[in-house]
């Protein structure tokens, strides 16, 4: 697949024609929605929150945030930043609920400290590695972005950034920049080693204590749903220690619980409870 981010800047690539083509493609709509759902799951928010959508584009990702029903902790309110006026224009025409800002995340994140409960970014931050058209290095832009993002999140807040790294080097450069800004960081890969691999950078602000571990970046991801580890604290409080949290058995058990309560649950698939590879 060709990578427009290797040759163009985002505001040039996403012109009026491309913005429309992108947003009306049902294939793209579906992929972006499922990744936004996955990011939300990783954010694990229990009540309506203020969320920053980084590289919000025409609102395909943000829409998932505002349409989340109360049973699932929503609806959330979001503010989106994007550098492409054409993408934002399409967002306006689609009457999205988020507030929109025309801004380049490589210049920083212009919100006061502790503004957001959480942030998501779907398919955007790899664009920061392209600095063709600007007088600043990718490292400089990444560092402005992550420093600004870090400050704009409240303590204990999380950010999940799905992105398309060009190669391992780029993956390391992006993750390294996040860690340097002070984030606890972990990389999660869905469908690893396939052409549909999806990479999620999971970031925490402040020392998230998971299983008594702090600082260790694997510890951050380890405590999350769908990652196969024992959670000693939960086990102690619930008294049901025999099922591993996040294991297939655990998910099936949860689903049964939810179904009994009359809630709609995703049908069980071959993906249910499957291990995801964690890098770092």
């Amino acid at each position, binding site marked *: 697949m060709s990578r427009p981010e290797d040759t163009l800047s985002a505001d040039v690539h996403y012109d009026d024609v491309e913005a429309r083509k992108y947003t009306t493609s049902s294939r793209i709509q579906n992929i972006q929605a499922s990744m936004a759902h996955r990011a939300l799951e990783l954010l694990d928010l229990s009540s309506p*929150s203020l969320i920053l959508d980084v590289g919000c584009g025409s609102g395909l990702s943000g829409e998932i945030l505002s349409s989340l029903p109360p049973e699932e902790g929503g609806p959330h309110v979001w503010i989106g930043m994007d550098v492409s006026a054409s993408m*934002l224009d399409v967002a306006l025409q689609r009457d999205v609920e988020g*507030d929109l*800002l025309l801004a380049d995340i490589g210049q920083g994140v212009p919100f006061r400290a502790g503004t957001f409960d959480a942030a998501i970014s779907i398919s955007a931050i790899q664009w920061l590695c392209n600095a063709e058209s600007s007088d600043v290095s990718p490292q400089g832009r990444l560092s402005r972005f992550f420093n600004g993002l870090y400050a704009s999140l409240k303590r204990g807040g999380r950010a999940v950034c799905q992105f398309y790294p060009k190669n391992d080097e780029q993956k390391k450069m992006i993750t390294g920049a996040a860690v340097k800004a002070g984030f606890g960081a972990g990389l999660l890969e869905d469908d690893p080693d396939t052409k549909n691999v999806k990479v999620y950078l999971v970031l925490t602000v402040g020392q998230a204590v998971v299983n008594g571990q702090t600082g260790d970046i694997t510890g951050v991801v380890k405590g999350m749903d769908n990652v196969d580890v024992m959670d000693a604290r939960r086990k102690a409080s619930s008294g049901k220690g025999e099922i591993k949290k996040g294991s297939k058995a655990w998910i099936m058990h949860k689903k049964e619980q939810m179904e009994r309560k009359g809630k709609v649950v995703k049908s069980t698939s071959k993906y249910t409870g499957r291990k995801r590879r964690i890098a770092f």
Partner: protein
Amino acid sequence: MKVLSLNFLSCAVKGCKSSSDSYPLHPKDAELVQDDIEVNAQLLINLLPRIDWTALTTTATELGFPALPPQAPTPEELEADEAKLKDLHHLLMETQIMEGKLVCASCGHEYAVREGIANFLLPSHLV
């Protein structure tokens, strides 16, 4: 641009971060619209401790709203008082600046707002 967002935005110009005058930004020649948006009580209660009440008071006055009470309500008060909740919802979520400018009192930079979207792109010498 919602009044909510204005309560969280600060000037992005280099050197302005350390100046207390760079927040809040001041609306100029603002055209407002009032949208009809469903009340999200839980969100407002969650947000309330993060709202800068002094800045909100300034913004409300600048936009021609009647003066706010000097003290922010507590989350408990907000939860118990539907009229208060509705007022705050109306100001923060339903009131939008459609056209105009946001001006930094520290460096004088003007951020244009068009069709409700504020332009925070800066020429590189200001970053």
